[in-house]
């Protein structure tokens, strides 16, 4: 299944590039991420619990970042498997500056197998789009929150989010 799309983030490409590779940020914004741990340079181990309607799946897998050309592009490779099936995604993210924002364009291929693909084929495309959209919405929201906090130093600092496990 091919996926592609674009989202605008209200930051510079340099900042967007850093955010999209920051494990703390990714763990906060990726729906259902329970754990994201660095296991090598540009390689992370993850645990996700995806809940969509009545369906829930526990996935364990790896996230790898490759082909980095800061601040223009990088490749994100995600692999995971669980009782309900497995998935493998390979996507190229391209960042371009558009006035005060950064346009993030992604294009990639997702393969899903196992029970979930056998019975859920009809809903895979829609579900993938929802997960990606929620990720970018959450990322954009957390970015604008940080920007507001920086712009208004007199207001009390926002509560610090507890960082997920990392070593």
């Amino acid at each position, binding site marked *: 299944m091919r996926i592609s799309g674009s989202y605008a983030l209200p930051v510079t490409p340099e900042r967007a590039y850093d955010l999209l590779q920051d494990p703390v940020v990714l763990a906060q914004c990726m729906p259902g991420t329970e754990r994201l741990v660095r296991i090598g340079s540009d390689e992370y181990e993850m645990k996700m619990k995806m809940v969509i309607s009545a369906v829930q799946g526990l996935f364990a897998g790896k996230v790898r970042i490759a082909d980095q050309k800061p601040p223009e592009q990088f490749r994100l490779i995600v692999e995971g498997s669980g009782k*309900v099936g497995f998935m493998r995604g390979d996507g190229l993210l391209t960042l371009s500056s558009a006035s005060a924002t950064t346009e993030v364009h992604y294009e990639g291929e997702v393969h899903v197998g196992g029970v979930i693909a056998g019975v859920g084929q009809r*809903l895979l495309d829609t579900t993938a789009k929802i997960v990606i959209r929620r990720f970018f919405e959450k990322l954009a929201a957390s970015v604008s929150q940080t920007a507001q906090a920086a712009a208004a130093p007199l207001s009390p600092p926002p509560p610090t989010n507890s960082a997920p496990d990392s070593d």
Partner: protein
Amino acid sequence: MIPQNFEYSSPNNLNEALALLADGNAKVLAGGMSLIPLMKLRLAAPEHLVDLGRVADLKSIREEGGSIRIGATATHYDIESSPLVRGKCPLLAEAASNIGDVQVRNMGTIGGSIAHADPAADYPASLLALEAQVRIASAKGERTVTIEQFLVDALTTALEPGEIVREIIVPVEPANAGVSYQKMVQPASGFAIVGAAVRVRKSGGKVAFARVGVTGLAAKAFRAARVEKLLEGTSGSAADVQKAAAVVSDGADANSDLHASASYRQQMAKVYTARALTQALSRAS
């Protein structure tokens, strides 16, 4: 396959049901046409099921103050065969008669269907064209939302934990209105690849009122407001219909799957919208 073990409650009335659901951990079982297969495949493993099947006051279909009120556990068969719905809200009866197969229509319920929010389900197109309202109940009280507010995303609704759909409220259709639901059916599942629901009224040789709901095309069913605008005020000729239906897919992020690619779906949405518009106009007087 056999589902994982779960606790099962079968309350006899609404208050009992809402009390059982109050902690937000139980899953509601209505007709079970989507949930039970998911449980058997172990894609869903709720720990506690609250079966609404014995809650009698959730099943009623009645007319009240210019509206038809359909209880959440009314089955698709109840709706397609109800003289009240057939006579006063024919679009919903037509949509119900197009769902799945006879076994599904005998068991499946309208509340269960909209709470599951499958992007290819039949009801949402009609409910959007009808500008329906959804009455939601929980142990804390009740609220009523529009169907547009209710359908948040694919498989996602405005229901909070502990809440259930209590009834669906649709307007009584004027006798001179014309309605139609046209769907391109996926033969194995019975779901719509695309489906278009239309309500029109004519006045003085012109289309005075048009409502169009589309399902299957995008992540959630939507009102095709631009199609409505283009049709209203015209004479409703074949050319007017084609021109209006041609914009139905504009701007839609179309679904794509094994059965139909995004561009095929966009094209079929135009074809089925045109068919529904044509039939509804021919039925309006």
